[in-house]
């Protein structure tokens, strides 16, 4: 049995004593899992990802990342292990060039310049964007920005990658490229997306959410083939299963 990386136990969350955004969420994620987090708009997918990385720590229940409880005091340790890719790359990339942005995390962890350079190079190679090393962020296309966003996370050498809507705004070629890159990444990844074809191509396990709760948790194909379950929860079968042309 592979090592448990994330343990979420009876987690509930609401903003400022308002309506519950997440309710009684419980699941575990193991070392080589590729988990798709699916559900209609506003069911709490992004909120759940943000809890896992400690962007909100006022939740009920328990979240442990590699046995470390996610709370204010432990955030630096948790964040060394988890890479979070934002939905909007413009929020993720804030330096002038790709190199500077990818080097940001290794520098913050106090690595030497040689090690920083090596990590940047490795991250660039992993997402096949060596040619973008010195390109300025504002000159990049949406697809290039997304790949650089992923590289900024890979330079941290995380054990876990969390991604929020990674396929949004990508053209078919960049989308296919991203699928290939994610499939090459062997560690635990959790991908929140509406793009069920993307989930089908990248994840072996899927968690279906509705109204802040987990409705189903199982093998991706099993869940995504269940038309009744998907439609009941505001989703549709993936295009490739509807007999339409796949992306």
């Amino acid at each position, binding site marked *: 049995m592979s090592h448990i990386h994330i343990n979420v136990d009876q987690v509930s969350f609401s903003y400022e004593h308002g309506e519950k955004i997440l309710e009684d969420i419980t699941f575990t994620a193991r070392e080589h899992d590729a988990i798709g987090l699916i559900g209609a708009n506003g069911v709490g997918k992004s909120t759940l990802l943000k809890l896992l990385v400690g962007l909100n720590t006022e939740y009920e229940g328990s979240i442990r990342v590699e046995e470390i409880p996610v709370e204010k005091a432990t955030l*630096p340790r948790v964040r060394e292990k988890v890479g979070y890719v934002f939905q909007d790359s413009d*929020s993720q990339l804030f*330096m*002038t060039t790709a190199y500077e942005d990818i*080097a*940001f*995390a290794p*520098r*913050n962890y106090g690595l030497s310049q040689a090690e920083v350079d090596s990590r940047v190079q490795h991250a660039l190679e992993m997402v096949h964007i060596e040619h973008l090393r010195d390109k*300025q962020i504002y000159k990049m296309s949406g697809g290039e920005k997304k790949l650089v966003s992923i590289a900024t996370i890979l330079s941290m050498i995380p054990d876990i990658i969390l991604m929020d809507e990674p396929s949004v705004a990508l053209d078919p070629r960049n989308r296919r490229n991203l699928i290939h890159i994610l499939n090459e990444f062997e560690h635990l990844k959790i991908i929140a997306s509406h793009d069920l074809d993307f989930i089908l191509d990248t994840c072996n396990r899927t968690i279906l959410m509705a109204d802040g709760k987990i409705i189903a948790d199982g093998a991706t194909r099993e869940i995504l083939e269940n038309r009744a379950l998907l439609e009941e929860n505001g989703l549709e079968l993936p295009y490739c299963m509807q007999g339409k042309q796949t992306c």
Partner: protein
Amino acid sequence: MSKLSKAIYEIHHMDTLANQNQWMNRIHPLVKFVLTVFYIGTVVSFPKYDMAGLAGMMVYPLVVFIIGDLSFLDSIYRLRIVLPLVCFVGLFNPFFDRVPVGTLGSFTITAGMISMVTLMLKGILTVLASYILIATTTIEKLCYALRLLHVPAFFVTQLMLTYRYVSVLLAEANRIMQAYSLRAPNQKGVHFKVWGSLTGQLLLRSMDRAGEVYESMCLRGYTGEYHFGDAIHARGKDYLYLLFWCCIFALFRLLPVLNLIGGLFVA
């Protein structure tokens, strides 16, 4: 292109210039910073009637524009808002200081005119020197130079984040304005009735975006101080560059170089 798009473009253009792999860009940032401060100090220290001495100081921007591959016209265009303000400073001198100091044909030149030109020159040269610094040095390297001078980390971080957030604010403002103008095609400018809501939207959206950028920084190990990586060491030629220009500035400040050169051609 809207004014906001232009402003965003100009910020990015300055970043592009600063990121070039030119000889000037590779000079140690602290050397460039110290040299700029020294140059501005020297320019400002010229007496108000020493127009000829000050004219000699033009050699620095002239040479650096050439070796740094910077466009002079481009710089004037980018400084178009600042330069008139700088020139405005000495505009009233001819009215207050009417002592005649010479004639040009039948035209009497007064001390006020000389001091006006001197003041304008001082303003233009100091602004150009600052432009040269930021056009050849990235904000990160500039902040690194400030840290080397032991400027508090808090201040340097504020400076860098402010620079970043200006872009965020402009980008959000541009989005809002584009959305507005597409739905108010025949309207010039923004109707005063929506100023309040647009300003509120701008504030909220830019705060949201700035918050996300900050979260992204925190998720990558940021704890309040920006790390510039290993030290950038100054090379021999950086020191030589500094020394060379400091000598030139001192020479122009202490000796009437242009007068001496002019004297060579007068029998």
